[in-house]
């Protein structure tokens, strides 16, 4: 089996095979923090780094691993990076670390991390695995970042705490509080998914007659 190139991996993860949009993976632990741009960025960067390094480790050790404990070792390696991330956040950005609280720990069970370390890393060399994990995280960041860019202004009139709407928007009580509550997160993911899938279906439909015509 040939190893995919860096370019292919990037395109796969950021566009045509985006983990959130195509595989609907990994929204659990991070959906709750998409109501603020800053939190979303820090969380998704964390996810990217953890996925990257966990993939690197799993790929590096793939010839050495005891097959019976592969699954548990995979989970432990992920946990290692998550705990490390948590300790680093605690020491250097304590306020953010505390405000993200339990969510950082839940990166362990994020399906993107699980998925990439399970499927891509054991079959590919370390460096490309790192890149695959990292770009998967970035693809994830694109979607969740977009969500937070919609949710935060609607609810608080700010982006990353910088006001973009006049102060009356919030003080008059006409702001969309629903935008930061749980239901809106589900609706927004669904809408983004809808737009993306419709586009994908169109591209597919456009491609089909062309190939059909070619074979005639």
């Amino acid at each position, binding site marked *: 089996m040939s190893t995919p190139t860096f370019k292919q991996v990037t395109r796969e993860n950021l566009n045509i095979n985006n983990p959130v949009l195509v595989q609907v993976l990994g929204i659990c632990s991070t959906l*709750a*923090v998409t*109501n*603020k741009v800053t*939190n979303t960025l820090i969380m998704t960067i964390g996810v990217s780094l953890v996925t990257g390094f966990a993939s690197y480790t799993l790929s590096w050790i793939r010839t*050495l*691993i*005891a*097959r*019976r*404990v592969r699954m*548990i*070792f995979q989970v*432990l*390696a992920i*946990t*290692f990076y998550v*705990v*490390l991330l948590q*300790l*680093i956040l*605690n*020491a*250097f950005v*304590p306020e953010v670390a*505390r*405000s*993200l*609280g*339990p*969510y950082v720990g839940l990166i362990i069970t994020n399906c993107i991390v699980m998925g990439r370390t399970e499927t891509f890393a054991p079959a590919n060399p370390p460096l490309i695995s790192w890149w695959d994990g990292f770009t998967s995280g970035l693809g994830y960041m694109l979607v969740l970042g977009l969500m937070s860019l919609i949710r*935060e202004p609607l*609810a608080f009139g700010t982006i990353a705490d910088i006001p973009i709407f006049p102060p009356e928007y919030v003080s008059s*009580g006409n*702001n969309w*509080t*629903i935008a*930061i*509550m749980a239901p809106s997160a589900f609706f927004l993911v669904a809408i983004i998914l809808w737009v993306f899938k419709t586009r994908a279906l169109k591209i597919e439909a456009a491609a089909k007659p062309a190939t059909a015509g070619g074979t005639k």
Partner: protein
Amino acid sequence: MKINKDGHVFTIAFTFICTIVLVFPLTLAYVGTKPIADAYWLDQHILKTLTSMALPADAKNIDQARQDYAKLEKFTVGKYVKDTNNKDIVEYAGLDYASIATDPSKLPTVLKVTDADVSKALQDNSYTGNYPAFFYIYTDAQGAQHYGGDFTGPGLWGNVALAIGISPDQTQLTGMQVLFNVETPGLGGRIAEPWFTGQFAGLKPVAGTGLIFNQSGQKAENGFDAIAGATISSTAVKDTVNQRALVLLKAFIQQKGGSK
């Protein structure tokens, strides 16, 4: 040499080595980073306690703040016990808030504690925020006594710890700061933002009811604005102030003989 990767020996050795390799660096990282995080939170605690008691607290002049904080008289509820090195340590008492609310004399005798006791309590509970109740007395140049304290109550996800200050005549709050919370970031977590905590300075709690939420645009003397979409976290702050902080402060002041 061919290794049998499905053999028992290899599996056990692999698991054993991996566990050590993974846990050891984490322990080092923990030992290396814990003091940095603890020092940060201790300074935050000092600044927030001083701010809630309306004393000057400037993050840029942290040395001054530390000195001011050292001048406060500090108390907690509990008893001194001997540890293994025969040193006195404080054992904190569980509190029955409801019965103290009906009868303030039910508050166990408060003990004077040192700065080291406070900082140890903060470090021991840095993950859960389950801080013991601390009381502070600050005597100003005129001899009037200002009271303050740290109180912990239940929030939506975990504990919410608040620093509360009260004026010498005990009629109004001098401030409220959030010492610990793990509420939902961007929602309930906004209880720690300055616009929210700033509302509490000057509020006049009503006997019996304490503080309430402002109803649509009407600002009450004892009312503050809840956070839209985070009713549970806002209520947690309200209840912690009403059912714990004010109850304990009142009982504490009574026990200390009050300032008249």
